[in-house]
């Protein structure tokens, strides 16, 4: 079974440019998470979805970041007008939240460098 896939794997931008990250979760997983992982830090949750609904986006810098999961499967995270402080790895994870089958499976991430 395929794991969580993400693209692109790397992105380099100038400040002010926009970028989109794409995530394909494990088939059948109803919950999808986006994390930001700065260098040498742990993942920090940005937003997560149950099916197509946003459950919690309180940590998403809403003025420049947006995330959608329109059909409850794939998801896109977009950064408008990137800043140097956005430099980090962006991780997508998915899980099937039923009983104790709630392990989050992570993709390989997209490494973003904003110059």
């Amino acid at each position, binding site marked *: 079974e395929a794991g969580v896939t993400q693209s692109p794997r790397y992105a380099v931008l100038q400040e002010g440019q926009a970028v989109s990250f794409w995530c394909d979760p494990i088939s059948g997983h109803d919950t999808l998470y986006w994390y930001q992982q700065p260098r040498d830090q742990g993942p920090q949750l940005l937003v997560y979805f149950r099916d197509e609904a946003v459950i919690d986006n309180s940590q998403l810098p809403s003025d420049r970041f947006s995330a959608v999961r329109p059909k409850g499967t794939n998801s896109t995270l977009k950064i408008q007008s990137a800043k140097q402080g956005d430099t980090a790895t962006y991780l997508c994870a998915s899980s099937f939240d039923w009983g104790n089958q709630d392990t989050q*499976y992570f993709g390989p*991430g997209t490494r973003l460098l904003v110059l």
Partner: protein
Amino acid sequence: QQQVRQSSQSLTVWEGETAILNCSYENSAFDYFPWYQQFPGEGPALLIAIRSVSDKKEDGRFTIFFNKREKNLSLHIKDSQPGDSATYFCAARISGSFNKLTFGAGTRLAVCP
């Protein structure tokens, strides 16, 4: 406020030794504690997890010891191998929180041959 704290940023052990990675937490409502392992260039992967009703969880060379009263836990890696060299994250979750995990900053383990 850092709700999940890992006491060491890095740890070095010799091959064959037991590596001990420590974690503490602030929120008494946390009741599920997974440890994730991350290799460079990869996403984190679940290694082992414990629920707060238990004080010990063992899986092969990996053991979690959990102290609810002191709000801390530790991951023991017995007979460490060079292939165990990775960053280890302690995480915590509150039941009923839609599986929302809070991660620590990680401990980078180096196992020297």
